[in-house]
């Protein structure tokens, strides 16, 4: 869409969201996620952290939006 003079919006300029995400390799998770992160890094979820996360994930059951697989993984970490 251009203004009255057509110069200030430049009809031919692409907007950042013009392209679908799948067409931009740099924006895909496969280019973001580390394949071999440090196995001893602090980013791995511990049992103590899982115990805090479980009730938060379970809270989505109130609205029927709980992710069963994620909940299963976290419960597995806590030994439930």
């Amino acid at each position, binding site marked *: 869409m251009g203004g009255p003079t057509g110069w200030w919006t430049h009809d031919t300029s692409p907007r950042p969201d013009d392209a679908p995400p799948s067409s931009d390799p740099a924006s895909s998770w496969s280019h*973001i996620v580390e394949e071999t992160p440090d196995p001893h*890094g602090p980013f791995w979820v511990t049992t103590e952290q899982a115990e805090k996360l479980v009730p938060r994930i379970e809270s989505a059951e109130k609205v029927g939006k709980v992710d069963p697989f994620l909940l299963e993984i976290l419960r597995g970490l806590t030994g439930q």
Partner: protein
Amino acid sequence: MIWRKSARPRAALSEGGYETWVTADRSNTLTGYDGGLATRQTHLIYQDGRLRTLTLTEWERLAGFPDGWTASLPTSERYGTLGDSFHPGVAEWLGGRITAVHDGLTAHPTLLDPVTDPARAAVEFDQQLALFPV
């Protein structure tokens, strides 16, 4: 498999609040507040049979920076710095738009002229304002 927190609780969980996590087709916006331990972050990744959150390298990649860009900073400051950063890709796009407008002005030199006809300038101003109805 990757999840992202899609809704923060608006009340304590004991008072009916809830938060939702969904399969991440995209990432959440990173903020320094969400950095650090898994209990603060808003992404979870199931990888090789283990669950983790984003690494700092992944934060850097999501923020548009090369790997190790913030490595000289203390860990806690790396999250804050990346959370506060402006994505270079967005900056580049904005710069391109400014350049395009500049080129447009160059192509229409009369637009750079001082206002010599206030009545005409007022009409043009009204025309442009009309594009953004309140």
